[in-house]
């Protein structure tokens, strides 16, 4: 069994009162020969993973080459999105394939949602101590 890794919540601003830190997870995304170190917001309410536009470009994705459209909701509904798959590594865990809705919005954070991030990882949130624990899913 793989041991869980603990990560602290990220402080996002001191002017936000009690909600001044959020569960952002550091990870490395890779596609072909490119890789980008980034961080994703763990969003259990999100149906899908979301990749912001600029990050997709950094990974070498070409908008015109990705032809599979997906429809998103909320503020993201106004932007086109395409389905893409990239490799992701978290801590020292084995690399996994993550499917993303690659949106044309650059304002959105990298979102890690149910499909398929939470299909791949078990996560415990400890809001009281502003930490989270994560490990690959246990079969």
């Amino acid at each position, binding site marked *: 069994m793989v041991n869980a890794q603990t990560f602290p919540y990220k402080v996002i601003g001191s002017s*936000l*009162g*009690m909600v001044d830190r959020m569960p952002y997870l550091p990870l490395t995304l890779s596609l072909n020969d490119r890789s980008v170190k980034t961080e994703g917001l763990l*969003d259990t*309410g*999100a*149906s*899908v*993973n*979301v990749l912001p536009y600029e990050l997709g470009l950094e990974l070498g994705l070409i908008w015109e080459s990705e032809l*599979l459209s*997906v*429809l*998103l*909701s*909320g*503020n*993201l509904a106004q932007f086109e*999105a395409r*389905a*893409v*798959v990239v490799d992701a590594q978290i801590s020292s865990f084995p690399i996994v*394939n993550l*499917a*993303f*809705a690659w949106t044309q919005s650059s*304002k*959105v*954070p990298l*979102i890690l*949602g*149910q*499909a*398929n991030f939470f299909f791949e990882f078990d996560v415990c949130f400890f809001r009281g101590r502003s930490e989270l624990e994560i490990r690959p899913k246990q079969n």
Partner: protein
Amino acid sequence: MPEAKMGSDRTLSSALRRGDSSMPLTELMSQIQELPKIDKLRLMQFLATELVKEEDQNIFVANQEYPIWSPYNCSEAANVLMNLLATKQQDQNG
């Protein structure tokens, strides 16, 4: 010398228990001075929490937009992503 030490036998806790909301701030402060260190720290924590609560009430402003980026209830998008993932993984496995 603080007023509370000059003869007042009222303690902060007893005043609070009575719900004495008319206690002047100067008297309150003098009684706070008598508190043990741990209670002063608890009081600081209490006041900090109260201030945050007041701030929170002012987070939202009328007629201003607050974006919700989370893609809720996008089951169709999730199906598209999972089908694409299955196809890619089949290709990878030969």
